[in-house]
């Protein structure tokens, strides 16, 4: 009895941590299990019987795959644009001294320190006042805007931890500025840029609040899920949720394996 209490005390943190992890994973488990459900009504909230129908025909629901491909397109373009703009800003912030540095810093910090709904509503105010038609372009504009800050943060962190002597060494070896940038700077900054890009993609793909305000009649995947919560949730939504989870885990694991191999290849 006494030893078991001692064991419990020693491993309290482990148990509490695993409980939290279970809390975090539980909805994913439910989503996966219910992707094999065959619900009787419009809603997929109660277990009826096992079925593979939804997995055989994930696009069997009207507009579902259309919204999915729209979300993927928006996320892709938003990632490309935000990564390019954000990386440039991050380099300027870390590598150069210039006027209005503080102002630029707070301008980049503010979008992250503001409730999303405030930004969403203000963008809508702009588009309404300017008479701009809501749709694909307004969603894309908004997504680039809020992804930008996160890219800057990710790239800045990486570039800050970079040894400037590596670039000096390259210049001492008569590398031109372009050559130094492409052969030395960019490869070292790459993990930060990749992290920023991955984060933008995830943020854009999953964004609901800002999209809800600025999409008009355009239906992205999160908008489709939102609508289905009122109209009836097809099982295919769970199939796509499950597939996204699996793909994400595989991508992250693959990324870590590549990272580990790099680390082993060049021990520091």
């Amino acid at each position, binding site marked *: 009895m006494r030893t078991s209490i001692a064991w419990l005390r020693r491993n309290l*943190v482990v148990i*509490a941590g695993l409980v939290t992890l279970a809390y975090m994973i539980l909805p*994913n488990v439910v989503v996966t299990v219910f992707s094999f459900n065959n619900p009787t009504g419009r809603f997929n909230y109660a277990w009826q019987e096992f079925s593979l129908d939804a997995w055989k025909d994930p696009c069997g629901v009207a507009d579902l795959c259309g919204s999915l491909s729209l979300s993927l397109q928006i996320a892709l373009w938003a990632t490309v644009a935000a990564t390019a703009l*954000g990386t440039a800003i991050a380099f*300027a912030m870390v590598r150069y001294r210039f006027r209005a540095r503080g102002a630029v810093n707070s301008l980049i910090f503010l979008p992250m320190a503001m409730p999303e709904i405030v930004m969403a509503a203000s963008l809508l105010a*702009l588009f309404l006042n300017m008479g701009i038609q809501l749709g694909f372009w307004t969603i894309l504009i908004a997504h680039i805007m809020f992804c930008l800050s996160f890219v800057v943060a990710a790239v800045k962190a990486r570039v800050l931890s970079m040894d400037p002597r590596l670039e000096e060494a390259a210049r001492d070896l008569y590398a031109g500025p372009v050559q130094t940038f492409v052969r030395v700077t960019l490869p070292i900054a790459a993990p930060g840029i990749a992290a920023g890009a991955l984060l933008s993609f995830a943020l854009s793909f999953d964004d609901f609040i800002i999209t*809800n*305000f600025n999409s008009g009649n355009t239906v992205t995947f999160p908008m489709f899920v939102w609508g289905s919560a009122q109209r009836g949730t097809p099982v295919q939504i769970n199939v796509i949720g499950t597939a996204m*989870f699996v793909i994400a885990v595989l991508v*992250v694991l693959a990324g870590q394996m590549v990272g580990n191999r790099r680390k082993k290849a060049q021990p520091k």
Partner: protein
Amino acid sequence: MTGPAVEAAPPQAPAPAGPPVHKPSVRKRLVPYWLLLPGILWLLVFFVLPMVYQASTSVQTGSLEEGFEVTWHFQTYWDAFTEYLPQFLRSLLYAGTATVLCLLLGYPLAYLIAFRAGRWRNLLLVLVIAPFFTSFLIRTLAWKTILADSGPVVAVLNKIGFLDVTSWLGITQGDRVLATPLAVVCGLTYNFLPFMILPLYSSLERIDTRLHEAAGDLYARPATVFRKVTFPLSMPGVVSGTLLTFIPASGDYVNAELLGSTDTRMIGNVIQSQYLRILDYPTAAALSFILMAIVLIMVTIYIRRAGTEDLV
């Protein structure tokens, strides 16, 4: 945006460290501005300018049919604030509770990953990050299944008398959990947990474990080591984690909409319906500015206090 670029080249720019081999050309000194220009322009046009438009919207009067006009009607702010005070207070209460719960739940997991996980560390990190990539709306809807009236969770909570206590506290109703404050706070806590865990983990991971050994050598009990060494050193993570949780939670309306009822409406729900359903733009804009002001003031005070030793 030509202003700063022109100012960019003051004739007596301070020389860079070390002996100046050659004077940087004007073109070279403009490089940071060219790098900044596109991104900053984007933020000015699509982040700052919208705020200006929203400010102007908030002092307009009129109707959708006849059109709105700027009349400097500041009364809207006071009316909106007093009318929706319950929703404001509820939002802050829910977001605050969710933040505290996230800290209590997230800290052990972050600690476990940082110090006790060993070779499981990468797997655990993946399990924390992976939900980011699954649509959070789908996961929030899954809570409807988990907390369903006829589901096992509610049955167990009912059996152990938990729901009697929470009903007495007024956070659940009868033997229901869905459509009560408990469900909304549960959803908020769940949705923002990763935003708490990741900063906590990154600040815990940086702690030198030799400090723990040193404290142990000085006869500190484990609890004392945590209180005097680990927790103070993890403060940066605690501060950024609580901000990353509290700020989005205070403006969220998804959890209150999907898991709550009309009695659990948060200020986000009000702003959303004013903007998108009732189309009362001035009130909606005023509400959104009041929310922004409250959050910014609270965050500033919090950062000030957390910056000193008061919180530790």
